[in-house]
């Protein structure tokens, strides 16, 4: 009888991804078959070579800032809405406790109002950053050279995008 080589399962064997009984069968074959042993070792060497790959580059320092700006630019209908369904159900079930809960609920609503105001203020700041991201990046780039020393310098940075190529050179 001709033996079928388990070639297609050798990578899974190397990865330890075969069920135990099948792994034992394949391993028995590999130990008796030089060709499959060579192929198993070749695949294992490829896996080892891939493990030696240098790590991918680190994100740049502005990565988080740019993401925050993009999220701030999302339209209201693109923003996730907090799940509220369970709260409505809970109010229905707890109708007998309504009055006992009225005072803490009022306090919670007041606190929520304060939080919403704070979030709106934060959102307004995020929106401002998003709308002026290019200006912010220009300012960061120029100030890193130590060339922004006065309000006039900052005003020039704000006009950088409007200056035509070659303009301003002697």
């Amino acid at each position, binding site marked *: 009888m001709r033996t079928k080589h388990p*070639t297609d399962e050798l990578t899974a064997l190397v990865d330890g991804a075969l069920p135990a009984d099948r792994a034992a069968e394949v391993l028995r074959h590999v130990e008796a078959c030089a060709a499959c042993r*060579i192929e198993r070792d070749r*695949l294992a060497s490829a896996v080892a*070579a891939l493990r030696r790959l240098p790590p991918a580059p680190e994100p740049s320092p502005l*990565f*988080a800032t740019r993401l925050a700006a993009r*999220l701030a630019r999302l339209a209201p209908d693109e923003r996730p809405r*907090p799940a509220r369904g369970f709260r409505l159900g809970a109010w229905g079930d707890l109708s007998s406790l309504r009055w006992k809960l009225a005072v803490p609920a009022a306090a919670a609503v007041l606190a929520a109002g304060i939080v919403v105001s704070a979030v709106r203020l934060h959102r307004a700041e995020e929106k401002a950053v998003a709308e002026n991201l290019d200006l912010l990046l220009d300012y960061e780039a120029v100030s890193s050279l130590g060339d922004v020393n006065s309000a006039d310098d900052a005003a020039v940075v704000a006009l950088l995008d409007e200056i035509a190529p070659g303009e301003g050179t002697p």
Partner: protein
Amino acid sequence: MAPDADAALMLAFQQGDEGAFRKLFERHARAMVGFCHHFVRDAARAEELAQDVFVNLYRASGHYRPSARFKTFLYRIASNHCLNELRRGEYAARAAEGRAGAEPADPDGLVSPAPTPEASAEGAALERAVGALLARLPEKQRAALVLCRLEGLSYEEIADVLETSVSAVKSLVHRATVTAAAVLAPFMPSALPKEVLP
């Protein structure tokens, strides 16, 4: 109870806690940039793609259910996005270039122009060879290889990410690893003649 810390953060975000989203970003930003980099081999573009992934995660957060592991949910968003990016053809020319040069790379011939220590030169050569390998692979094999070999996901997790069966993943990973063995032969301790294979 949430099955893992990331799932708990995702559930907190679903309830409106934006700080939870920031924590998720901090925990996974570097991994996502690295993952996208495996697809496009360009640091700036990888960052853009990783940003897209987090924007998509932000928008799709309502679809997350704690029964799914957060890691596979995130990698599914990232894989779909990176594969779509490849399908759009922006990198077709680069991929063709990779296929054209897909013969086993010579580590000595791939040293960068500037003189570097031997180890980092070999690392750079290996990186280029892996870039050529990934460009040569069909997209599903590429995704499976990246998820398995470079991101360390199990076959079951990859099946979940790619929305396919474990046996299909086994086949994808095997075919990609066979190609890797051919392309990366110069980086392996002993390259043996293919005539002896079954």
